[in-house]
């Protein structure tokens, strides 16, 4: 007879092998993105209808740089979580699945680093 508790027997099964933290972080980033993405849309609409110099000045403000990096961080994390479930749902060969999952995570980490570097560089002009 198995001496494992019901919880121990159930942990680690399913396509993702683990899940609640992912589910919760998807909701946390969604809630953060409600105001952040509305701000982003409004900002992009304003900036693309004004001149380039205005856009460069706009990013000198610490608040604007902060909100831009917050938006990029939340959306990149949200995107990574979303693409992760797509891979887990459709790829079942172990080699393909784990290499894609690794590429996904590392790719989005790299994307965030690039985003942070670019925003900071433009902010410090």
């Amino acid at each position, binding site marked *: 007879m198995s001496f494992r508790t019901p919880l121990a027997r159930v942990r680690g099964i399913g396509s993702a092998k683990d899940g609640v933290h992912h589910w919760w972080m998807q909701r946390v980033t969604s809630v953060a993105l*409600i105001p952040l*993405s509305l701000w982003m849309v409004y900002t992009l609409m304003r900036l693309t209808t004004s001149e380039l110099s205005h856009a460069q000045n706009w990013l000198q403000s610490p608040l604007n740089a902060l909100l831009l990096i917050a938006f990029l961080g939340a*959306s990149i994390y949200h995107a990574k979580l979303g*693409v992760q479930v*797509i891979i887990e749902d459709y790829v079942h060969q172990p080699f393909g699945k784990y290499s894609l999952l690794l590429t996904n995570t590392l790719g989005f980490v790299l*994307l965030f680093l690039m985003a942070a570097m*670019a925003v900071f560089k*433009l902010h410090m002009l």
Partner: protein
Amino acid sequence: MPESTSTPRTTMHERPLSPHLTIYKPQITSVLSISHRITGAFLSAGLLVFVAWLWIAAYCPESYAAFMECTSSWWGKSLLAAWSFAFFYHFLNGIRHLFWDMGKGLDLPAATRSGWITVIGSLFVTACVWYALLG
């Protein structure tokens, strides 16, 4: 007892499957659900382009003009329009999901109503935004 034989890989591919996507009627629930995934994936690609834009502005100023020319081409503008629709759809349907997570609106009539609000709302808001930008 017949001697055991392992299943050859070809046999697994020859076994019949019941039809599913080819026979199941598309409904507001299922169509909006897969659209949420498709718009999410499409928006992820858009994020790559958005970060590329920021990187080029910061570190490759000699390429910036060429990049902006692409955004004003017919295919560039079409992509931007598609991304804006995908964004508003994913945003509204995402809020619909958050209500479900709180246990609200899970019955079929409510889900159908909120589904139509999502579709019509995203078309309407996308049209308003582009009218404001171009009109």
